């Protein structure tokens, strides 16, 4: 039975899960959820995800939410196929975990707020807070400086190979670069640029972008 992914293909968190599924060569079916009409807050969806958020996956009878928990699960369940996204030793896994946490805590909130103010609110006909967006941009400059330092010593965030830590950044950085006019955050940094060039050209990610087009 094919894994179902609930969520719009255009949203960042479902894309995180889709990228992982494609990397691992796992068949899936996307079940669209209409966020604009608040489908995710309706009682029948709340049975799937009690906080009213996407994505949710259903793997037969097994249901899971929280996109980073889902990608950990997929990477572990399908450890024997596709690229190793987790790391081998416990130490390697810990470093992957560390950069996943960094993405969740130091990176994601800033990107989300910036995209909300610059893109989502205007699309909904409301004014975005440009000062807030600017503050986020300045904080992101500092975060990307740390990434530059890290990537000048390490080909990928957690080491020599592409892992969940890199994958987890794909949707947000794509939004920054392609939609929010923030490409300079990447292009002004040599190692970050090289890393982004590499990970964003992976066949699996390009596949996800095609699905979302």
């Amino acid at each position, binding site marked *: 039975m094919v894994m179902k992914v609930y969520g719009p293909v255009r949203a960042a968190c479902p894309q995180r899960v889709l990228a992982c599924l494609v990397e691992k060569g796992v068949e899936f079916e996307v079940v669209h959820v209409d966020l604009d009409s608040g489908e995710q807050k309706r009682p029948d969806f709340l049975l799937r995800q009690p906080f009213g958020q996407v994505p949710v996956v259903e793997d037969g009878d097994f249901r899971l939410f929280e996109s980073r928990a889902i990608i950990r699960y997929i990477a572990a369940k399908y450890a024997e196929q596709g690229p190793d996204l987790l790391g081998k030793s416990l130490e390697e896994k810990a470093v992957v*975990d560390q950069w996943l946490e960094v993405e969740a805590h130091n990176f994601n909130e800033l990107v989300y707020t910036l995209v909300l103010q610059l893109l989502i609110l205007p699309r909904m006909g409301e004014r975005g807070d440009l000062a807030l967006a600017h503050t986020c941009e300045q904080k992101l400059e500092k975060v990307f400086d740390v990434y530059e330092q890290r990537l000048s010593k390490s080909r990928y965030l957690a080491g020599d190979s592409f892992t969940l830590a890199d994958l987890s950044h794909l949707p947000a950085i794509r939004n920054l670069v392609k939609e929010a006019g923030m490409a300079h955050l990447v292009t002004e940094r040599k190692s970050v640029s090289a890393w982004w060039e590499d990970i964003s050209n992976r066949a699996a990610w390009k596949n996800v972008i095609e699905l979302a087009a």
Partner: protein
Amino acid sequence: MAVRKLYGALDCPSTIRALASLLEHDVEFELIPVDLQAGELKKMSSLSPFGELPVFQEGDLTIFESRTIMRYISHEYGKRGEEQVYEIPKLQGIAAAWIDVEDHQFDPPASKLIWELVFKPQKGLPTDEGVVEEEEAKLVKVLDVYEERLSNSVFLGGDKFTSADLTHIPSLYLLMKTPVKRLFEERPRVRAWYRSVTSRPGWEKMVEMVEKVRA
């Protein structure tokens, strides 16, 4: 020289999380206090590139982010028969999801309430009752989900105590000394859950360590 070091500040929730995990697993380590008031954090930038605590070192491994440290400890140092992780991907998947639930749903209102009701008074700053009311309303929604979850599951992550429960320890420790405690007491399964978490030997050891510093 200690094999394992934890750099942290015992009045920081994230340090308490890492500490709780180490103590729960009976792992020997040296706690190296970092004095935030004295600006010692700046000295740590080689260990903690975002300037955050705690940092854990074991041999060649240096890791930061308290939930990373917690995950690593739980996988590396599981006590036989009392592992705080599952081997089966589906079961571990669920436990991992509830670690993230604490992070993304519970922690935002909990940490704002801790700031208003614990840290601000300590610094002589006035509590903003409007914020307290707002954040309690958000926390109530999360605790209602927990109440429902705990009707299907003995612990948040599954049928045994896991990191999904342990990760709540810092907030439980700090919030139980405030009126927010009533929100946990009012929900029978949540009440039973938090009482179970706070009566574990690891909890006792953590409280002892943290309060010794305060004394």
